[in-house]
């Protein structure tokens, strides 16, 4: 009989050789648990993320923008579906995963606990929030777990379209009337720091990071990805004439990166702990949809059963 130590070594050798881990392969329990946590959080983020953006579908200021926003939010629902399926490959049913969200046990990206107050927030979410998410997701296309990596390839294609449409909303606002430009700047002011928080705690304080890197679930650290995002986004803001709300932001000729200020980790911890502006509303909305939809799901199941019985008879 092969002992566990040996299985662990074989597993790690596979990872080191850049081979994908597939659902039927042996994997350490901790790897499985880590991935279930990460993929389900990711799935929940897609689904909860529909709420702040869905908030503006009925109010989009042109029919073209309304159509784009509908398509975008629909994409997010699709991403949720692939990712719930990826979790199922690890032996956890979609019902169980969703129950964990609804009971408050599972987490989702804290960014979606901030409110969308003006139309410009839809631009800021696409540009900054999707922009930050892409940094992580591009890396995840090469993650060690096969089903997750493959889901990410398609998700990344759509997210990059989302990012561009968000930036374009901001660009149009920034060159519009003074009120529009003010709306865009205000949205950037409110979404900038929460977007930087999306990369997670600093490397020194990230509880899951080291093991995730060894297993090649993650391939770049939180701080590395955050810096790439800042470097890119600062330039994009300059092009459209908006100002990043960080007085300490400065190009560093030596490092060839921007130096920047300090994240308010108290705010971050507060929102993660459930005290963000919309935590209660988001969870309440998901629970309401789930509860009010119960009879619909029951009817579908009952009808399918009747139909199968009739066919068998």
């Amino acid at each position, binding site marked *: 009989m092969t002992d566990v130590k040996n299985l662990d070594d074989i597993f790690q050798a596979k990872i080191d050789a850049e081979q994908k881990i597939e659902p039927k392969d042996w994997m350490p329990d901790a790897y499985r648990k880590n991935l279930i946590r990460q993929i389900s959080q990711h799935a929940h983020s897609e689904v909860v993320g529909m709420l702040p953006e869905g908030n503006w579908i009925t109010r989009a200021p042109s029919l073209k923008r309304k159509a784009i926003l509908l398509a975008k939010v629909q994409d997010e629902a699709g991403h949720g579906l692939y990712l719930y399926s990826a979790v199922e490959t690890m032996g956890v049913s979609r019902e169980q995963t969703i129950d964990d969200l609804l009971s408050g046990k599972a987490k989702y990206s804290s960014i979606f606990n901030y409110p969308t107050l003006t139309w410009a927030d839809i631009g800021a979410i696409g540009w900054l929030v999707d922009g930050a998410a892409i940094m992580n997701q591009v890396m995840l296309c090469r993650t060690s777990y096969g089903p997750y990596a493959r889901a990410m390839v398609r998700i990344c294609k759509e997210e990059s379209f989302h990012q561009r449409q968000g930036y374009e909303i901001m660009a149009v606002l920034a060159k519009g009337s003074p009120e529009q430009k003010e709306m865009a700047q205000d949205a950037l002011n409110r979404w900038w720091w929460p977007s930087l928080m999306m990369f997670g705690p600093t490397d020194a304080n990230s509880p899951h990071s080291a093991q995730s890197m060894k297993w090649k679930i993650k391939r770049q650290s939180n701080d590395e990805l955050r810096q790439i995002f800042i470097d890119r986004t600062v330039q994009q803001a300059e092009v459209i004439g908006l100002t990043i709300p960080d007085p300490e932001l400065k190009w560093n000729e030596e490092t060839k990166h921007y130096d920047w200020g300090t994240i308010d980790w108290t705010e971050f911890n507060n929102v993660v702990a459930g005290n963000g502006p919309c935590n209660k509303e988001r969870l309440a909305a998901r629970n309401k949809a789930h509860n009010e939809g119960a*009879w619909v799901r029951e009817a*579908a199941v009952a009808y399918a059963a009747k139909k199968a019985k009739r066919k068998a008879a």
Partner: protein
Amino acid sequence: MSQNNALFTYTLRLADDLLILSQRLGEWCGHGPILEEDIALTNRALDHLGEARNLLTYAGQVEGKGRSEDNLAYLRMERQFTNVKLMEQPNGDYAHTMVRSFLFDAYHLPLMQALLKSSDEQLAAIAGKAVKEATYHLRASSEWIIRFGDGTEESHQRAQTALDDLWTYTGELFEIDPVLEEMTKAGIAPDITAIKESWSKTVDQVLAEATLKRPADAFMMTGGRKGLHSEHMGFILAEMQHVTRAYPGVEW
């Protein structure tokens, strides 16, 4: 009324039905009973919106006063909207939403199929794009009506209630007035009585399979085509138009 005026009004009616239904369906986004249905509802909203935009753009061209799709959608008031009242009814529960769509889909598909032969090339082309989507919409809503009717006791009850509530709004879909008469005479609009026959047949077939009862044709609501709406309409427009109206004349 000149034929151009009648064509403008007729095209606008087709557009307004779709625009307002799409607006209602958009309210569901993120709140559907299951993720797959969230996606399907959004798809429906998107298809209706796409068709509405083609029709509004065309209506603006026919009118010849330089009004764009956005101009027509965002800068008209309640009394100038010509959708039937069925479209503005609140979403209610999922049975009300699906019955509302089913009653519309069963009318929309044969209408689009008939419009393929319209003497107006632009309307025929728009119908050409819409037929495929309309076929899918009717299939999907019919399947839900059958699941509800022949599902659980609760779903049956909810579907029957929705049907009873909304039936009074179906007469408006088939109203004949001078605009429609003129359009039919010109070979632009199809014969609405034939559309009604097709609608009625579909409704009977689906309700029979769903074990639901077709409500009696009692009193039918009217007024939408003349811009006489329910009280819901003002709120729909307030929500839809407020940003655009608050910043007049800018690009988005």
